C-alpha cells in the first residue's frame, strides 16, 4: 500500500466503532483481528472479524485497556497495524509507544503528539502560540486550593473547572458562586483522578451558551494537512454529544475558511499526522476559541464522511501505511447536509440512567440516505461495563430541512426492544422548532427539553397490548413452561395466534 505493507489489522476496540473499522478494512481487502472481553464473546464485532482474540475479564482494565494483552494479541495473529478506534486506548500515548516498540503500526498520530495534545494546558499554549484564540483561563494554577481561588478571582466568575488530562465531561464543573469553589474543585479533582489518574485542574472563563463546533483534519507523513470542514456538536447532555451535524448551521464560507485555517495551523504546529479533530467553542458573536485536539477518530466522523465524500477510516489506514494524501484543500467540497443521532442504552424516564440488558428484538431503519453504524444484534446482552452507546443513525440529504425530515422518519422506524433507549428523545430533539431553526447551544437540552417526558400510551396501543397479552399468556395458575395457552385454534385454518405463541422464548 505504501511504505508499510498492511495486510492485517488488529481492531483494539468494541461496539459500533469496531464494526465500522472492520468494514473499512474489508473494503480495502485487509484481514481483521477483533479483540474481546468475556462480556463480549458473541458481540457483532467478534462475529464479523476474520479472527478474534479473547483479552480477559469484562473490566476494561483487564481487557480493552490492557496494553500488554492488546500488543500480544496483535503479535500472535501477525497483524502489522493496530486501529484503536475512539475511547479506551485511542489517546493513550503509552499504547502508541508500545505498538511502536513491538514494530506495529499505530493507526493514529505519533505517541509524542498524543502526549503533547492530551495535556490540555500544553495544547492551549500551542494554539495560542500560532495565533489561534483560546478561552481566557489559567493553566495549571497549582494543586493548592489557595492558588486555584486566586486564579478564579483573577478571571472573574463564572468559571469552568476542567481536568487537564480530561475529556468527555469527566472532572468538569461550573462555578458561579465563590462559596462553591472548594466543594466543586474537590469533586472535579476526585472525578479527574478516578477517570484519568491525574487530578490536575485548569480554570477557564465560562462562555455562556456556547456552540461546540469542531474541524476534521487529515494529515499525512509527507507534510500535507487538509481540513474537511466543520461539525456542529452543540446538542449535548452532561457534556456528552447527542446530535451532531455537518456543516454547521452557523457557518458561512468565510467562517468555515477561518475556522479550518486555524485548525490546520494547530495541526501543523503540533506536527500532526493522521485524522484528528480540533474543537472550538463559539460565542454568540461568532468569536471562536480553541478548546482541544482529539487525536483520534471521533464518534461523529460519519457526518463529515457523508458531506465530504471521504471514508475517514480508510484514509487513516492509508496515511498510517505511508501513502500521500490524495486530496488538496481545493479538492474538498462539502455537498448536502448530514446529521447524526447517537443511540444510547439509557432510560430517559429515569434521568437517563444506563439500561443494559438483552436485545430482544431489533429493526433498523431502511430509508434512502440513512446509514446506521451499529454495534449490537438481536439476542445480545448489552454489558454494564462499557459506554452506553449502541449505534448511530446518520441521515444525509441535499438540504438541512430534508436531512431533519429523514432523520425524524429513521428514528421513528428504528426499533430496539429490550434495553431502554433514547430513540424517542432524539426524535423530540430533531423535531423541535429551535433545532429546525438551527438555534443551537450546549444548553439546548436544558433550555428546550428539560421537562420532556415520553407521551403516555394512547388507547389503541393499550388495546393492541391487551389483545397480544391474551394471545400469549398462560391460563391462571398454570406454570409458564407448561405448554400453550388455553386459547384453542379452529382446526379448519392455521390460526396466527398459535404461531404467536410459538415465538415465546
Amino acid at each position, binding site marked *: 500500500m505504501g511504505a508499510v505493507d498492511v495486510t492485517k489489522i488488529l481492531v483494539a476496540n468494541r461496539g459500533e466503532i469496531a464494526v465500522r473499522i472492520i468494514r473499512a478494512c474489508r473494503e480495502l481487502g485487509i484481514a481483521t483481528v477483533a479483540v474481546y472481553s468475556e462480556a463480549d464473546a458473541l458481540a457483532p464485532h467478534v462475529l464479523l472479524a476474520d479472527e478474534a482474540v479473547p483479552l480477559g475479564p469484562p473490566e476494561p482494565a483487564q481487557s480493552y485497556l490492557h496494553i500488554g494483552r492488546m500488543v500480544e494479541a496483535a503479535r500472535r495473529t501477525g497483524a502489522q497495524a493496530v486501529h484503536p478506534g475512539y475511547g479506551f486506548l485511542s489517546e493513550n500515548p503509552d499504547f502508541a509507544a508500545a505498538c511502536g516498540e513491538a514494530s506495529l503500526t499505530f493507526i493514529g498520530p505519533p505517541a509524542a503528539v498524543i502526549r503533547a495534545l492530551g495535556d490540555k494546558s500544553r495544547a492551549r499554549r500551542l494554539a495560542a502560540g500560532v495565533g489561534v484564540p483560546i478561552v481566557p483561563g489559567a493553566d495549571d494554577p497549582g494543586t493548592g486550593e489557595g492558588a486555584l481561588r486566586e486564579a478564579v478571582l483573577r478571571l472573574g466568575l463564572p468559571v469552568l473547572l476542567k481536568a487537564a488530562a480530561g475529556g468527555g465531561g469527566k472532572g468538569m464543573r461550573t462555578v458561579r458562586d465563590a462559596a462553591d469553589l472548594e466543594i466543586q474543585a474537590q469533586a472535579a479533582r476526585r472525578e479527574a483522578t478516578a477517570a484519568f489518574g491525574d487530578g490536575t485542574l485548569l480554570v477557564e472563563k465560562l462562555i455562556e451558551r456556547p456552540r461546540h463546533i469542531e474541524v476534521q483534519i487529515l494529515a499525512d507523513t509527507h507534510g500535507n494537512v487538509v481540513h474537511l470542514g466543520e461539525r456542529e456538536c452543540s446538542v449535548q447532555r452532561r457534556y456528552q454529544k447527542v446530535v451532531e451535524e455537518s456543516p454547521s448551521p452557523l457557518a458561512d464560507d468565510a467562517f468555515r475558511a477561518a475556522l479550518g485555517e486555524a485548525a490546520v495551523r494547530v495541526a501543523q504546529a503540533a506536527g500532526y499526522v493522521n485524522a484528528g479533530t480540533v474543537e472550538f467553542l463559539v460565542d454568540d458573536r461568532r468569536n471562536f476559541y480553541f478548546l482541544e485536539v482529539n487525536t483520534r477518530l471521533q464518534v461523529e466522523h460519519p457526518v463529515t464522511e457523508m458531506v465530504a465524500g471521504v471514508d475517514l477510516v480508510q484514509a487513516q489506514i492509508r496515511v498510517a501505511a505511508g501513502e500521500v494524501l490524495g486530496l488538496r484543500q481545493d479538492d474538498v467540497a462539502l455537498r448536502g447536509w448530514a446529521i447524526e443521532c447517537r443511540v444510547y442504552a439509557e432510560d430517559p424516564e429515569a434521568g437517563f440512567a444506563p439500561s443494559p440488558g438483552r436485545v430482544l428484538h431489533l429493526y433498523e431503519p431502511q430509508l434512502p440516505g440513512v446509514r446506521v453504524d451499529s454495534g449490537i444484534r438481536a439476542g445480545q446482552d448489552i454489558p*454494564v461495563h462499557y459506554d452506553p452507546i449502541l449505534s448511530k443513525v446518520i441521515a444525509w440529504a441535499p438540504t438541512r430541512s430534508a436531512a431533519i425530515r429523514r432523520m425524524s422518519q429513521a428514528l421513528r422506524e428504528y426499533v430496539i426492544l429490550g434495553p431502554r433507549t433514547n430513540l424517542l428523545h432524539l426524535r423530540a430533539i430533531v423535531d423541535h422548532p429551535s433545532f429546525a431553526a438551527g438555534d443551537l447551544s450546549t444548553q439546548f437540552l436544558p433550555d428546550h427539553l428539560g421537562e420532556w417526558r415520553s407521551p403516555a400510551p394512547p388507547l389503541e396501543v393499550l388495546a393492541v397490548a391487551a389483545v397480544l397479552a*391474551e394471545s400469549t399468556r398462560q391460563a391462571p395458575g398454570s406454570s409458564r413452561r407448561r405448554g400453550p395457552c388455553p386459547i384453542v385454534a379452529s382446526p379448519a385454518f392455521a390460526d396466527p395466534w398459535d404461531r404467536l405463541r410459538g415465538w415465546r422464548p
Partner: protein
Amino acid sequence: MRILHGVLACGNQSVPYAVEREGIAATARVGDCEVILSVHPVTPGILAVTCNGQNLQVHWATDGPRTLLHIKGQTYEFEFGRAGPGRARAQVAEGDLRAPMPGVVTRMLVRPGQTVNTGDPLCVVEAMKMEHLVRAVRPGRVVRVTEPGTQVESGAIVVEVEKAADDADRR
C-alpha cells in the same frame, strides 16, 4: 368465544381491559372505549395490525413479566395481571436500599452495625461508566451490605437497613 379480562400496568398506571376474540379479529375494551382489531403475524416479532380500519406495524417482544411493544414510532412497556385481587408482591422492609440500575457495586461506604441517617451516602453503583450514589431514605442500623465488585440487577437490595427501635425517641 370467551371474554378475557385482565389488568395492564404501564408505568404507575393500571388499566383494566376485556378482550373478545374470534379468529384473527378481536374486540378490546380498555376503560370506556372499544377497539376492533385484526392481527396478522408477518415475521417473528413483527405484526400487521388493523386497528379500527387503520394499518399499524407492531413490533413486540416479551421478557419475563415485561411485554414490549413498538407502535407508531414509540416503544411501550407493559406488565399484565388477571383482573381481581392485586398480585402478591414480595414485600420488602421499607428502608432497604435498592440498586437504581443494573450495574456493579463499586464502593460500599457503610459497614454492618453502623447507624445511618436519612441522606447518608451508603454505596456507589456504577454502570456504563456512570456512577450513582445510593443514599439512606430513613435513619436506621445497617444489617447487611453487598460486597463491592458484585454485579446487581436493577431493584436488587444493595444495603439492608433495620429501622432503629428508638427511632421516635431520637427525633
